[in-house]
């Protein structure tokens, strides 16, 4: 499969089988099937299968090692399955197979084990013991220490608290005024912040509050000034950027720090001007995957936050070969990473022991108080109360064997974080107890550990009914950590990874630069947040909404009328031209080539992410046709020509007609009526799993169909489930998907409610219990 067009080849779900493989498999047995079925009109599909197919495919289509080992299964409709069997088997003479018999075998295979839910009955996927994923590990450690250092979620206020002084140091008697600034981007020129009250030769400003991180990753903070400034992020004791001494013509000072999404951090910025001719300051950042920008108001909080411990140790990535990250395997490099991380945390804990334990170094009862700190630390790490024996093993012994108190604490932390009781939250032999339930809720919604309220509910035995669990889950869904987790899921769902370093042909589209690409990402993020968290939270609006978030550069580039504003604003677009995420220029540009649109990428996205059907790697290598092949040929024509070979058609018959409906959007997601001076043909079609053919013209009509489609609902539920629970959905019972989908439809497609339902469906699971 060398040089095919660049399409992701990893299937979203492993066990779905390819139509290609099926073709081959059916080919092997086709001869026998057709000769047997010669004249008996009454023979059933089951009989044909058992006598002629089972030898190679197994009695239940599970595959047979020495013949065809892959189980039969796939995403074709019954009609398509029939066509494949009828049209291709037996391989040497397809004519010999009677249509009626092919139909019976196809129906039998389809009804019995071909589709996913049928397969689930046969394969019995189970809930496997899992370690914390990397994300879960890092969130858990940070939130664990936050239980000691204090924790706070940002309220609704935004901006930073600014205190203005008429001297270069922050002396109380020189303070002139205090106000909330929406962002730090000031050019005072040769003047001062307030010409009447503050002299221009010398003044200073102190901004304080918090910084709200939405995504997890490395953030580069940059202070831009020709004067002096110092910036603290998270750590009050040491500035991240120290540019107090202005030296030469250095005006940009930056440093990088890792932050976890869904959390807010302490921020302070000190600034002074002294004798320089001019004064200006701006506080900027480069969040992960984005371009540098002035920190927007929505990420600033005028109230401060306690210090958080953020683990810097690098971990190897989790296995996500089944379409979601899960912790069901371990490796040496992972084990090493847990060791380095444990050492890192132990050192950081000891360095902050006074803050974390609340016990001063000269406290006469220091030993007893540090032991209490350690009991609590281990208990939180294990997500349950400790037995007397555990206290002895994990804490008392370590204190007894250590030379001094801080090495005792270090050993306790190391031991707790290396313990399987911390690393494998799912260890349990029987039915879950209250603490298991609490732990599952917190992992499901936050990828973290229970907060104090949830812990209390567990300790009081108040997590035993669906109502009690729902009460906690509803509370927790509103926490920023759920937002962060859901955002992480949505990014995965929309294939954000593809958009890393999104760029277009610089000669053709010089305006499309990294800043614009970054703005597009922000625009889509804001849209996602808006649909999910404000209003009725109806997920169908992800597809149907005509709203878009734009700032000035985006509005200009995409020809959208906006009110004057510095930041992003929500605007309503022509519904004929824009439909939710589907036509969002970020996705349209992502699923496109350097110079032209890509109906194939767009079609594949709809097939995999929306209707949830598996696609296998292309069977033959096909070099993409050059865009300049024919100056009159449209993209649509070129793609059709390219995928014309029969071997392409099993998949491209599905992919292309979906992708063609996006042809109104060029390589950067701009709306167009014409290509190469010819009107756009955006007609498309789709055949459902049940075999029904649907047609539409343009993305809006496609979006309307998809928003109604049961397949789409089911796919969304399944993907969200896997992201939340990180175990195969089918392990929770054959009816679980149907039930969840039904509940999703009945609750007006509200994703917050769906999260609560998923939690309730899974937290009481016990071994041997399948829904």
């Amino acid at each position: 499969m060398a040089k095919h067009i660049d399409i992701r080849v990893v299937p979203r779900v492993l066990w779905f089988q390819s139509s290609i493989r099926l073709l081959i498999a059916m080919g092997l047995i086709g001869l026998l099937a057709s000769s047997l079925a010669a004249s008996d009109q009454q023979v059933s599909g089951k009989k044909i299968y058992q006598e002629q197919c089972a030898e190679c495919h197994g009695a239940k289509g599970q595959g047979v090692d020495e013949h065809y080992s892959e189980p039969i299964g796939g995403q074709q409709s019954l009609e398509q399955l029939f066509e494949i069997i009828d049209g291709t088997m037996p391989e040497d003479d397809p004519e010999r197979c009677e249509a009626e018999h092919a139909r019976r075998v196809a129906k039998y295979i389809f009804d019995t084990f071909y589709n996913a839910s049928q397969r689930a009955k046969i394969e019995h996927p189970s809930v496997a013991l899992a370690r914390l994923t990397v994300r879960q590990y890092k969130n858990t450690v940070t939130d664990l220490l936050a239980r000691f250092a204090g924790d706070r979620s940002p309220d609704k206020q935004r901006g930073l608290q600014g205190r203005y002084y008429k001297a270069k140091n922050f002396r109380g008697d020189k303070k002139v005024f205090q106000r909330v600034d929406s962002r730090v981007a000031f050019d005072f020129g040769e003047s001062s912040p307030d010409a009447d009250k503050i002299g221009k030769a010398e003044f200073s400003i102190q901004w304080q509050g918090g910084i709200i991180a939405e995504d997890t990753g490395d953030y580069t903070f940059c202070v831009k000034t020709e004067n002096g400034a110092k910036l603290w992020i998270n750590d009050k004791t040491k500035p991240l950027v120290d540019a107090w001494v202005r030296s030469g013509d250095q005006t940009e000072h930056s440093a990088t720090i890792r932050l976890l999404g869904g959390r807010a951090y302490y921020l302070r910025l000190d600034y002074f001007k002294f004798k320089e001719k001019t004064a200006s300051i701006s506080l900027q950042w480069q969040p992960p995957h984005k371009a540098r920008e002035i920190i927007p108001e929505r990420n600033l909080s005028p109230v401060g936050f306690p210090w958080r411990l953020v683990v810097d140790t690098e971990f190897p990535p989790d296995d996500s070969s089944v379409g979601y990250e899960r912790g069901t395997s371990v490796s040496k490099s992972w084990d090493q990473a847990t060791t380095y991380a444990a050492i890192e945390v132990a050192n950081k804990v000891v360095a902050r022991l006074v803050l974390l334990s609340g016990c001063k170094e000269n406290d006469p009862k220091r030993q007893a108080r540090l032991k209490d700190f350690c009991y609590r630390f281990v208990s939180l790490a294990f997500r349950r109360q400790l037995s007397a024996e555990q206290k002895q093993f994990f804490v008392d012994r370590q204190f007894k064997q250590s030379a001094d108190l801080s090495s005792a604490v270090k050993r306790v932390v190391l031991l707790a974080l290396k313990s399987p009781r911390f690393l494998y939250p799912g260890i349990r032999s029987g039915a879950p107890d209250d603490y298991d339930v609490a732990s599952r809720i917190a992992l499901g919604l936050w990828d973290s550990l229970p907060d104090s309220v949830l812990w209390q509910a567990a300790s009081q035995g108040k997590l035993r009914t669906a109502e009690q669990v729902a009460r906690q889950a509803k509370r927790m869904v509103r926490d920023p950590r759920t937002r962060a987790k859901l955002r992480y899921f949505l990014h995965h769902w929309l294939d954000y990874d593809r958009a890393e370093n999104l760029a277009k042909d610089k000669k053709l589209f010089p305006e499309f630069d990294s800043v614009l690409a970054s703005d597009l990402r922000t625009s889509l993020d804001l849209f996602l947040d808006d649909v999910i968290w404000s209003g009725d939270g109806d997920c169908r609006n992800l597809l149907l909404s005509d709203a878009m978030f734009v700032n000035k550069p985006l509005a200009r580039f995409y020809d959208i009328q906006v009110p004057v504003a510095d930041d992003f604003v929500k605007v309503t677009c022509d519904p004929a031209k824009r439909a939710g995420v589907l036509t969002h220029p970020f996705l349209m540009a992502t699923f496109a080539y350097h110079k032209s649109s890509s109906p194939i990428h767009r079609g594949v996205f709809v097939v995999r992410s929306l209707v949830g059907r598996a696609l296998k790697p292309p069977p033959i290598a096909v070099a993409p046709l050059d865009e300049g092949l024919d100056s009159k040929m449209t993209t649509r024509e070129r793609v059709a020509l390219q995928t014309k070979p029969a071997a392409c058609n099993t998949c491209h018959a599905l992919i292309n007609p979906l992708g063609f409906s996006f042809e109104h959007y060029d390589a950067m997601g701009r709306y167009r009526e014409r290509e190469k001076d010819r009107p756009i043909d955006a007609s498309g079609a789709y055949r459902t799993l049940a075999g029904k053919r649907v047609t539409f013209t343009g993305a809006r009509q496609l979006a309307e169909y998809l928003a109604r489609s049961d397949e789409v609902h089911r796919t969304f539920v399944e993907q969200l489930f896997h992201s939340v629970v990180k175990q195969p959905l089918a392990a929770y019972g054959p009816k679980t998907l149907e039930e969840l989908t039904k509940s999703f439809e009945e609750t007006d497609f509200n994703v917050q409610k769906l999260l609560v339902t998923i939690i309730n469906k899974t937290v009481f699971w016990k071994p041997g219990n399948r829904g």
Partner: protein
Amino acid sequence: MVQRQTRRTFIREAGVTTATLPFIWNLASLGFAKPNRRKQRLIIMFSPNGVVPTQFWPKEQGTAFQLPPILSPLEPFKDRTLVLNGICNKVRGDGDSHMRGMSCLLTGIELFPGNIQGGSHTPAGWPRGLSIDQEIKNYFQDRADTQTRFGSLEFGVAVPHRADPWTRMVYAGPNKPLVPIDDPYQMLRHMYGQVQDQKSLKIVLDDVCKDLKKIRTMVSAEDRKLLEEHETFVREMEKELQASQIDSSKFPTPFLDKGVKNVNDNIPKLSRMQIDLLVNGLVCDFMRVATLQYTNSVGSSHMRWIGIDESHHELSHHPDSNKESQKMLTKINTWFCEQLTYLVQKLADTPEPDGDGCLLDNTTVIWTNELGKGNSHTLNNIPFVLVGGGMRFRMGRSLRYKNIAHNRLHLSLAHAVGHRLKTFGKPKLCDGGVLPDLV
């Protein structure tokens, strides 16, 4: 920065890649990599506010000279001492004398214009170049036979916790001040944290395995496989730790008195702790270059332990006619010389770990100051007292140069370690090349 030293930064500092060392604990082997060539080490010690010239400079030149009162503690090492008079900091430009005295002392180059205003002159920023200790460190680190784990370590005693041209003298490059670590416990962690972590880890991993055994019985046969796999990794790590066991006789973790707070009145204790750590670092060959900075330019310690309540800086402003102050300043500088002597004595008492003689044979300690004299703020006749054989200079002498730029001394240091620079710092101030009569 320092207390967050991670394994990765350690590896970076050690100049080894993860590919060669999958699990790096074996510090000892890094510490004693290349025993062949004779080592050369440089230590620069700084004290502030100038000296009392009449009590500091020897009256005689050449080998027959008397050590004046301030230098008298060095008497046992007189034949290994070199006093250089007549060396001047000729860097001009922005910044007052204290700032230039400090930040151009080791860099020999002007400060950038900036926003830090001293008592006089124009405001300034950081120097435009790196300091000589870092230049030599880089030279050593670039060569396999002189490379060490840290290259250099920057020690401080009672350095104020603010970063400006008065508190920093070591620079990794233009606008790149390096922070001296003035907390011995922090320095201990920086130097030996990995070794201590390893010890704790070894004990802990044994407990982890015990616990894993217990837990295995709690899960299904299927899930047990995962835990068993996990256990093999833990066992492997245990074995690797065993294999990389550190030879503690070669690699002693120094013992520090507990609970010494980083406050003015503890300066004598802190000074000894830092010197002990510094010498330890040399024994382990963690670095070949070190600086030891007492307070800062304009340093205002109150040396109550020798009966002086007034601040050092304030006293240094008093006129020569104030005999009482002159006496006190002499006392203060003598105390600094005692610290130098303690360091030198320790170097003399410590044998070269893998060769002949003692550390002092291969180490040059330079004691210097940001000013020639406190009350005049002169940058002429900057004190430079050298002790020890690291640079292979002819010792046991008192030399008097005539108004020579201190850049030429820096050049001489570089040449002494084989780094044949044409200029260092401001090129014009290097006219004439290395100092005559040193070797």
